[in-house]
Every structure is written in C-alpha cells, then in structure tokens.
C-alpha cells in the first residue's frame, strides 16, 4: 500500500513548472537574440570600420603616389627618363626591336673599331649572347634589361692606346649604356725599340658591357 503511494507521486507535475520553463525559455531566447544581435551589429560595424580604413587606404595610397610623383618631378626623374630614352637605353621609343638594335649597334661598333689605331691582325671583337639582367634588390616587372658583353682583343703600340680606344667608343654615343667591365693589358716585350713598330708592344683583352632595356607589357 505505501509503495503504491510512492509510485503515484513520482509523476512530474509539469503544470507548476510551466511558467518557470516558459520564462527560462524566453530568457534563453532573449539572451541569445540579444547576444547574437549585438554580435551582428559588432560584425557590421567592424566591416564598416574596415571599409572606412580601406577607403582611407585607397585615398592614402593615391596621395602617396601623387607625393611620389611630385618627388619624381622634383628630383628631375622625368628629365632623367627622357635622357635614358634619348641615350637609347629604353628602346621602346626607337621603333626598333631588340634584334634590330643589336644589329645596328654591332654595325656601328665595327665601323668605330676599324678606325682605331690598332694592329688589325692582332685585334678582334666578339659579342656574347643576349641575357636578361636584373639589378640587385629590384623585382621582376614589365621593365626588362638585356645585357651583351663585347669582348675586345686589342693589339696596341702604347698602353695609352687602349684607353684612347675605349674612350673613342664611349664618345660615339652608341645606343644603350656601355660600361667597361674589365681590361687586362699585357706587355708583349720588355724592351722598347722606337724604330720597330711592326708588332704590338701591348695586347689588351677588354670586356664592354652593353645594356638596353624594354618595357614589355605583354608579359
């Protein structure tokens, strides 16, 4: 008999818990909604702030670019650029291709060398293959520099003729930038006889580096 009572009373009376459960549920929903809504607002405002920062970044970079431009102008960059173009370093303005420019320069150089005070039998020249040249610290871009090495073998009477020859090439203002890279001057004979000028007293092996550049927007 007592057991029966116990069994009966184990039933849960949900009616007395209903209001509390409803309030709990509502609180839970309200709490979640409040937190989610505020997070949503937070995300919205974060995105808004990011957009403002990006907009500002855009304006700022535009401003920096313009400032840079002004700096370029102030530092005579434009003048230098035009000078490089007229020097033939940048071949875009010359209406020649790289190949054509090479042929033109080699023709001109051949002519110049033939006019120098050299022992012709002991002198020759040799163009190396064209290679891409990258300046240290600069990244690859549409602006490309190409380099060829011109190996000059010169037979001269006096060591000063080597310098004169190099300076003559320099003076001709060939297209591109010419830099003397190295020169190895050797004395062929210890004794000098001013009456004997049939053979070169000095022979020199010099390397001239020739640089041209191109803006290649295709790559």
């Amino acid at each position, binding site marked *: 008999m007592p057991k029966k009572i116990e069994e009966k*009373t184990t039933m849960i009376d949900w009616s007395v818990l209903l209001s509390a459960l409803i309030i709990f549920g509502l609180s839970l929903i309200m709490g979640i909604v409040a937190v989610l809504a505020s997070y949503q607002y937070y995300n919205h405002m974060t995105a808004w702030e990011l957009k403002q920062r990006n907009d500002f970044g855009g304006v700022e970079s535009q401003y920096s670019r313009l400032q840079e431009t002004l700096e370029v102008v102030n530092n005579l960059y434009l003048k230098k650029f035009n000078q490089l173009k007229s020097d033939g370093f940048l071949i875009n303005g010359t209406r020649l291709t790289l190949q054509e420019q090479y042929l033109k320069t080699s023709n001109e150089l051949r002519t110049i060398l033939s006019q120098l005070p050299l022992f012709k039998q002991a002198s020759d020249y040799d163009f190396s293959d064209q290679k891409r040249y990258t300046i240290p610290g600069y990244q690859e871009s549409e602006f490309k520099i190409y380099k060829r090495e011109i190996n000059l073998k010169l037979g001269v009477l006096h060591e000063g003729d080597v*310098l004169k020859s190099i300076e003559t090439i320099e003076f001709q203002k060939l297209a591109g930038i010419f830099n003397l890279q190295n020169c190895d001057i050797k004395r062929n004979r210890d004794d000098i006889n001013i009456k004997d000028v049939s053979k070169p007293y000095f022979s020199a092996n010099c390397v001239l580096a020739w640089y041209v550049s191109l803006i290649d927007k295709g790559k």
Partner: protein
Amino acid sequence: MKRILYLSDYELLAFRVKGKILTKVQRFQTTDDAEFVNYLTDDPKTPIYWLIDSTQEEYQTALLPHVFGKDRYDAIAHRKKRLFENTTYTYGIIQGRETKGRKDDQMLFTALNKPDLLQPWLDLIITHKVPLVGIYSLPLLSQRLLKHLPKAPYTLLVAHTPQISPHNPAGLRQSFFVKQKLQFSRLIPLNTHNPQEYADYVLKQIVTTQHFLTNSRMLPQTEPAPLSTIILSEGGLLEALNQSLSGSFSDLNIRILDNHDFARRLGLRTGEIAKRKGEKEEKALYLCDFVAFQLSRSWYTKNHYAKVADIRYFLYRHLRMGLYFISVLLLVGAGITSLTIYKSVAAIEQNGQKVIEKKRQREVELKELYQKVPQLPIDIVLLRTIVDSGDYLKAYHILPRPALEKLSQVLNRHQNLFLQRLEWGIGNSPLKIFQPYSKSTKTKKGKVVTEPNNPVDEIDPTKNFVEGMRLHGKIHPFRGDYLKALRTFNKFVADLRQPRNDFWQINVLLSPYDSTQKFQGQIGSQSEIGKAPFVIDILIKHSHAKKN
C-alpha cells in the same frame, strides 16, 4: 516569513513566524473542515514545515555496523523495515559511536505508527500543490532546546503540549537525552487543572519514567541517579511544583523553569493568537512553541518523515526558483555581454569616424596635390624603376683613366719598378673582378704548395661596388740584392697607401722576397741571380650615389 504546522493526535495548529514573533494563526480539528482548504488556498506559495507531536511515535535505539555509502543506507533501510513493519513514515539517525568493541554506530530509529493521522492533511496539502519542506518529529527537534538549558549527560525534559485528546486539557511530554541526543520520548495526557494535583502527577510521572529508564538500562544504576530533569511550566503550577519538590520528591534532581523566562531566553515573542469563534485568547506556552520557533530560526533542517513524493512541490519550487535564477542570470549575462559588445562597437565607431575624418582631410590634400602634378608619359612606378635602373648602371660607367693616372704618378717616383701586366675591372665585390691569386712554390720534397691570397673585405653590393687594378711587375734591373729590392717595393707600396691617392685597399699578393724563398747556387755563377716579381691589388670603393 515561515509557516509551520503542528499536528497532535487531537488537532492541527498553524503557526506563522515572522522575525522573532511566533503567532498561532489557526486551529484545525478535522480535515473535513473547509477552513484548512481555505488556509492552503489563501497562500499556496509559502512552504510549510510540519511538526508531528504524537503519542503514536515510536523510538528505538540500536547499533549498526560502522559502514559508509550505500551499505549504510541499505543497513538503515533494512533495520527500519524490520523495526517498523506497518508504516512508511520512519527515520533513522546516527547519534554517535561506541567507544569499545566493534565501535558500531549508535542509531535512533523513529516511526509514526499511525500514518492515517497525517495522511488526510498531507493529501490536502499535495492536492493544493502547497510546497512542503518536510515532516519533522517534535521530540527529535526538541534536542535543539538543550543548548539553552542546563547541560547534563542524562537529561529528562518535561514540558507541556497542547491538548492531545478531547478529554484532556493538555499533554505532558517527557523526552530523555543522553549527551544531548534523544533516546526516548513519551507523551501522556494531563488530566487536571488543580496545581497541587498537577504537581504530584507530574513528579510521579517523572519518577515512573526514571524507573523505566533505569530498568531498561538507558540510565546508569548509580545512587543518586545521574538524571537531570528539567520541567518547563508556568503560572501557579510552578509554585505547586516547587512545594512538592521540597516535600516527598526532594531526592530528585529537578530544575523548574518558567516557560516565559525560557521564551525570553530564546528570544521568542508571541503574536496575537488567532482563535476560533467563542474561544478565549490563549497565553500559555507549550513545547511546540519553542520547537517551532527554533525550527524557524535555522535555515536548513533535515527532513525526518516526508517522502520525496510528499515534498515534491517544494522541490518543484526549488526547481522553479532555480529556473528563475538562471533566467535572470541569462538575461543579466546577455545584457552584460551585449553592453560589452556595444562598448566595443562604440569604440569601433569612434575609430571609424576618425578614419572618415582623416580620409576627408586627405581627400582635400589630394585635390590640392592633383593641381601640382604634371602629366607623365608612363606609369610613375615604372618610370621610377627605369630611372633608378639607369642610375644604377650609369654608376658603373667608370673609365680606368683617373685611376691609372694616379698610379702613373706613383710609378714615376719608382723607376726600378717595371710593370708587365695590368688588370683592371669593376664589380660588386673584389672577388668578382679578379681571379683568386695563387703562387706556387716547390718544396724540398717536390710538392706544390698553393697559398690562396684573397685579403679583401666583403662590401654591401646594394650600396657600393669596387674598381680594382692588379699590377704584375718586377724589380728591374735586379742584380740579386733582395734587401734593396724589398725596400724599393715597400716604399712603392707605402706611396700607394698615401691618403691623397684615394685608394681604398692595397693588397700585396706577391712580394719580391718572401720568407719561404731560399738562396742557393754555385759560387761565382751569374745564374744564381733570380728575379724579384711582385703582384699588388689596388682597390677603389665607389658608391651607387645617383649621378645626374
């Protein structure tokens, strides 16, 4: 406020305790009385503490093995079942441990042998969903009064109870405690209002109880008996008791306390007592008043008799409270979280506004700048790259003439030095200009020793580059005087190192004489005269400073 029900065999009393004021609110004699239902429905929310003070309550002391956990629970349940077969309202409490033998637990088991006494009331309470905290045994709770009474190892507390039957005006409860723990209690009717008869009756009952306790070995059989009896009484009865005590009962160790004094000691104040129609206001204090008051003063008292099902509405109440509390916590937590987020949002908004302001300012400056900028043929970045590249390459555009002229000036002062070969070059580092120089010397064993000679510091190629000359020459004419040759050579090197020449480094790779060189040959022969060659590196440091 707390409300307490007190159930005797005769009636049910309802108390209300507010602060220290105990008020008898109502009196109910039958469950058919609609007043009890009204009482419950008037305030269905305040929990009820229910005190039982019945002649049907039974007390059994027993020893149980000292075990823990489920074993203890099972042992107690088993013993209760064995002791009290006909009721489910049982309770067991550990009151101490034996000091000798197996050191078993000393248990007191109590039971309400007549569940019908409380069942109708309980059914009504449950039907009306009033939270019931617990059903408590009044004698067991009267233990708590002992701390306000003179202490003794064996105490018999004698106090009045309200009416326990329609034929008696009151009841007399005698509770026996050992070391402040209840061992036995007895409720008997009090049949008289006459003080002297009352006093004699009470004292006789005490003597009877004392004999019972001694015979049942609950009280040690020593002389005088170690029992300390405390009688709580009031009014004219006190005087009668005192008179009787000085007479034939003088050998008893009895203390008589006035109920009202004791109430004051407890801090108990009684409120206006509600009464049924035609009933006189009642000022008498009973044991139940003290116990009810004590019960109301403690924040938790362990339930004695109520089963889980009986107190389920109290548990539901707890659950509800818990749910409400969690709801509040949730809302407060959500509120705080939201506020924190909104605070962050406010900061973000403030930053955003600052950025907008900066943007506006920059836009104005931008417009001003636009007016100053000329048109450029190509992209500014590309233009800059081209110009900087051109500058870099042009920086290498160095001819050997200036360096050679300086060298010539030095050589002109040293006619004995004869140059056979001159290497010139420029590069990012000295190592890239010349091949590493090595000289070979044959030792006695015929082995070739190679001595590398690259004494050049590294430089930062992004900032500087080097122009270098390597001179291969000899002392000429040379007639075997190495000392003179060495001096001439050293003077030449010292001249090269003069600051006015702007040479950065002078490195001697081969000297006309070195310490490994040995002199040997046929005496008087010209062939022993060797050569005095030298090799020197001259380095000039240039920077990539822009050239216009």
